[in-house]
């Protein structure tokens, strides 16, 4: 397998965004359930898959997974099958969905990628937690409101960010604010 410079750098930067959303707590939106918050930390992986393809999505997801394993604050994510594997799959599934729908309408495709990517994350993480006996099956209903919120947020944010980045890349607008080259 060969990974080119572009894929390395973009995946690294998106992974960094996931880490930043995590350490600053900006990536958590309070939800009234037991875990207390819905996350948007998986969104960089989805965006990576939508903008640059599966390799970037998988790598960005892997960084997010490794970070959540190393920076585990719950004792549940120390197992890489729970923390890393589901996050690697995010890039893959969301890319497939985006690819399939892109020709029809890229906004719908991005929203669908957001939904599928989020569900991949939730279903596989919760599934692995139950499989390893770290979460009782009875606790699953308490996760559903959080999962719904995450799906809605991911659908909205993925479309808007993908559009924003494409708009800036198309050159019809500029993103820089200052003249000295710092953004």
């Amino acid at each position: 397998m060969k990974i080119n410079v572009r894929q390395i750098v973009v995946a690294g930067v998106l992974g960094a965004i996931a880490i930043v959303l995590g350490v600053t707590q900006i990536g958590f939106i309070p939800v009234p359930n037991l875990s207390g918050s819905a996350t948007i930390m998986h969104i960089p992986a989805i965006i990576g898959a939508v903008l640059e393809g599966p390799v970037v999505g998988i790598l960005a997801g892997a960084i997010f997974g490794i970070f959540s394993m190393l920076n585990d604050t719950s004792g549940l994510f120390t197992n890489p099958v729970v923390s890393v594997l589901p996050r690697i799959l995010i890039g893959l599934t969301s890319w497939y969905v985006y690819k399939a729908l892109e020709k029809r309408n890229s906004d719908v495709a991005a929203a669908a990628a957001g939904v599928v990517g989020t569900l991949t994350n939730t279903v596989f993480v919760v599934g692995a937690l139950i499989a390893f006996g770290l979460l009782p099956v009875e606790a699953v209903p308490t996760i559903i409101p959080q999962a719904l919120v995450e799906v809605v947020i991911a659908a909205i944010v993925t479309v808007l960010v993908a559009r924003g980045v494409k708009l800036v890349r198309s050159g019809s607008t500029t993103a820089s604010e200052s003249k000295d080259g710092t953004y």
Partner: protein
Amino acid sequence: MSLEFSRTVTFGQYINVNSVVHRLDARIKMLSVACVMFCTFMTRGFVSILPILAIAVLIQVTSKIPVGYTLRGYRLLLRTMLFIIPFQILFYRAPAGVQVDPYWQWWVLSISPQGISAGLYTLTRVILLYHTINMLMFTTTMIDLSDGAEILFEPLKKLRVPVNELVMTMTVALKFVPLLITELERLIRAQTARGVRFDTGGVIERTKKIVPVLIPLFVNALNRAEVLIVAMNARCYQGGEGRTKLRTMHIASTDVFALSIILLFAVSAAYIGRTFGV
């Protein structure tokens, strides 16, 4: 909400003080961390986790990292744990053969002394794991970490895994973290100046508030990525093949000594946990 993330976030920072731990070989440190983490999972209760605690204290003292600085990083961790621990106590299910005498019980929820002790044990374990990883980051430079990782994962190259590229991706990510934290801080200040309050509102409202922060964050980050891509291509970066190192790593006798002490403690923790289950 605090706007000064760069002061409260300690993850992934290198702290330049000259100590024994800082001078150890990065490979040795990474192996030790892996070993301590693995053995922490093998512990079963407060007795078996004691040797791990001893390691944590030993590293904290010898590394000369200010205790206050280490503790500052735990603020966010403790805040999340405040949610998780009650959850774990309420849903506590005793392993077979353990007598539970709950104070209170309803459906699958209960509060019992066994549940509380299990919750506290989990908290200790999480703090120790977090401490181990943090100490590695505090005492090792990024270059040493990536060089060490490359050497440790070298055998995977035989399986055609692009080790150098993967390590480079991780390095890029960690390098960008402080930069993006400052950036995020700036974006949030800009929104706050326009009257947005990030700590209020329901789910929909919060999502609406966070989008104007996320879009410029992604756009600026990807612009920076473009610059780095050009810079790396201009320097003919081609992955690990045929690349040589300016500094080579050497394992000294202190490294072997440190590794054997850590192994002794960690393995004894795992042994106590496995055989006595305490």
